[in-house]
């Protein structure tokens, strides 16, 4: 098989969960499989596939990478800390 025929490299990424979303998922993290150089939008899709209870709240949630909010098109580094930030309710 040539290099061009080889399947795209993938990696496993753990996304941290908090608050009501952690209760919905029954876990404080979800691990998903993504292509190398996946974007934030692909992380969101991966979460939707991997964890059905999170689906209704995903569109209103943001993704933080290394403790900063990032845009949907942002590629995410292999060793980044990724968190789903949804349904915030402090105060």
């Amino acid at each position, binding site marked *: 098989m040539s290099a061009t025929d080889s399947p795209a490299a993938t990696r496993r990424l753990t996304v*941290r969960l908090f*608050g009501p979303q952690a209760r919905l998922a029954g876990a404080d993290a979800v691990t998903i499989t993504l292509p190398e150089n996946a974007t934030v939008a692909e992380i969101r899709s991966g979460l939707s596939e991997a964890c059905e209870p999170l689906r209704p709240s995903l569109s209103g949630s943001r993704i933080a990478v290394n403790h900063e909010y990032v845009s949907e098109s942002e590629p995410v580094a292999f060793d980044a800390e990724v968190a789903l930030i949804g349904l915030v309710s402090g105060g």
Partner: protein
Amino acid sequence: MNGASPPISLSPGPLAPIGSASPSTYGAVLTFEGVVRPSEPDGAASRPLAALLYEAYEPMTTQELARLAKTCEAEFEAILSVEHSVGEVPVGACSFRLRVATPHRAAALACCAAFVDRMKRDVPLWKIPVWA
């Protein structure tokens, strides 16, 4: 206003009462306290609470509170200090305290409203009901 970061504090459990000393010579000093209500919505109904359990995502929570406080200080020519609980806070206890000092009252009231609205939109803090 000055270039220093506003004081931000995350503390376990209920926040202790404060004295009445003014933090500055500004003309308007406003202290807003968020207190745990005795009930919360649970679906369409209201259900009695024992407490709220606050969760933070550190260091992002403190970082976002500081960013928001600095933005509000610049926007409203204000001085802010922020305290927020993490962990369990019983009904009737204080879980959030914002102190705003400005030259005049209109700016203090507007700053307080803006800070709380933006905190509830942007700062990673969650509350989980502990039902009675």
